[in-house]
């Protein structure tokens, strides 16, 4: 499966992408939310994992833009910011289950990805 990671923390997102690749998940990443749109236009991803708090465009706004480009795209949010408003906004957008709080356990993330894959009816090629 192909996923796109969007987070302004390059150190975090690069390491995460590399770790996912060890687990046979093809993960691309961008640090600027603006760069995510062309990425989605280029490639068809299964899941986009977005940070909610990002400069200029927040995760929720980005989700809407990406969804416009690629309606089949599924989303997972993660954030280090757990304030009430952000949690409410994020959870209502996507459901509490796909709202992950940093630091995340990689196994937990993978479990969520598997869940999405199953819902899509696809086969997870592990």
């Amino acid at each position, binding site marked *: 499966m192909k996923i796109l990671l969007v987070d302004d*923390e390059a*150190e*975090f997102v690069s*390491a*995460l992408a*590399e*770790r996912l690749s*060890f687990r046979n998940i093809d993960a691309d990443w961008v640090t600027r939310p603006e760069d995510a749109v062309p990425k989605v236009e280029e490639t068809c991803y299964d899941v986009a994992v977005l940070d909610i*708090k990002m400069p200029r465009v927040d995760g929720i706004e980005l989700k809407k833009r990406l969804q416009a480009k690629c309606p089949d795209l599924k989303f997972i949010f993660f*954030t*280090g*910011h*757990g*304030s*009430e408003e952000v*949690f409410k906004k994020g959870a209502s957008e996507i459901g509490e289950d796909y709202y992950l*709080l*940093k*630091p*995340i*356990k*990689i196994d937990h993330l993978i479990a969520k990805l598997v869940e999405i894959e199953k819902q899509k009816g696809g086969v997870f090629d592990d």
Partner: protein
Amino acid sequence: MTFLSNLKPKFWDHIDISRGPHKYLFNFRKIWKLTVLLTLVVSIIPLIILAMIDYWVSYHSVMSENILRTSRLVSNTRRSVSYFLDERKAAIDFIILNETYELLNSTSHLERTLKNLQKGFGGFIDLGVINDKGVQISYTGPYELTGKDYSDATWFKDALDKGVYISDVFLGFRNIPHIIIAVKHALPDGGFYLLRATIDTERFTDLLAGLHVGGDGDAFLINREGDLQTPSRYHGEILSNIDIQTPEYSERSQVELIDRGPNNRLLIGYAYIHETPFILMIIKNQNRLMAPWYETQMQITGFLLISITTTVFVILGGITYLVNQIYLADQRRLQTMHEIEYANKMASLGRLSAGVAHEINNPLAIINEKAGLIKDLFTFTEKYNNDPRLMGLIDSVIRSVERCGAITRRLLNFARHKEIKIHEVDVREVVHEVLGFVGKESEYRSIDIQVEMDPDIPEIKSDQGRLQEVFLNLVTNAFAAIKEGGSLKITGAKTDKDYIVVDFTDDGHGIPESDIERVFEPFFSTRTGKGGTGLGLSITYGLVQELGGTIKCRSKVGEGATFTVTLPIATDVQEKNGDKKPSEKQ
């Protein structure tokens, strides 16, 4: 004392435990005292002044009325007495003018004249004629006095000087009081004679005795030496000396008040009767005269006392009630202010902890991923795969990150929960979670925490966040009381089909019996100045009530305290939106 302390209003012993500038608007005791004083003064002083004015005015009016009456009685009586004497004198004058000296010298004629006088006027006893030598030349009456020489008698000389003489009363014939009237008459040849008559005074004794004198009164005549001339009721027998000093001479009727002690005050009216040695005296008992007035005054005074008592009670009651209401309102105001303050503080704290959590979470996430990546590299690369030490180190880093993550998550959770959200809540889990907050402190202070939760406690319908706050407050509260090395025991059980009970028992310093009732009152704190706001338990109380439960406290000084929280298993509390009550978190 218990009765008094029951009456004592709440504000009286109010101690401003959170004293600070602008905290309290009122000094209740001072307000109470000032208002009570002012109200009492303005309501009671006029009453007293009115009563006093009435006392003086009515006293003086009654007094002058008495004096006026006495004076009138004296004048009238004097007129009667004078008239009686003048009448007798006029009779004698008439005889002198009507009869010749020669005729009067004849005893038989004199005898007939006396008889006529007795018939016409009454009271005449004898009649005699005395010539210019002072010898009684003719006499008719019960004594044999013809030829008696009066030339040396004082009365003879008096009669010569003044032309008329009226004697003092003396006890003469048959021991009946008499007076003598002698009138001088000049003869054509330059000589003169006296016609002398003895008159019994029964008539004016009767006159005086018949007078109705109020106030245990007495009416009588005295002479200038103070000897009684007529009998008196209270002041001695006839001819005895009176016990009152003879009043000074006055042309007119006089009234005097003589004070001879509190029970012997006499109102004395007197008048000198012209051309006689007599003084008319009318004596009244002042106390008896004033009795009706005194009785009225007693009634007024009684009424005054009742009024004052009622006023005092009403004022004390009313003002105490009002000041207490102000006090209660002020307490509510303060509580609200504190709650707002506290809510603000908690909101800031929430924002702060959320901010901190966020700031820490991102680097933590990086550490997590980097460490994870290293682990992955080791795992997927043969070279380091079998180096347990390196794997151990990496695992240790990841575990630490997980611990940090748990802490930041807890901070975020703490800042969340604002609405009542009724969920299935596992009380055991909540207790466990709460103890997680204080785990470090209990370790440092070596406080032994025992948790005994009955396994049959069901999940209850409640608000997890509030329950957490309640338990956290109780644990924090217990920790404040526990000394180093003490213990806290938390037990939970299902007591009946509807309720579960959680006990927090510490072995700290305990709460005095007198304070137990007050521990849930806002601002009641024994930790004043040591970080306690006195709000923790009151907020806890409020929270437990919001959850439909109850909280109770049992304690003995020195033996610790037990707080018992009873919670309903199925709540009927509605979910509501609204600001979370601030929690005590120290």
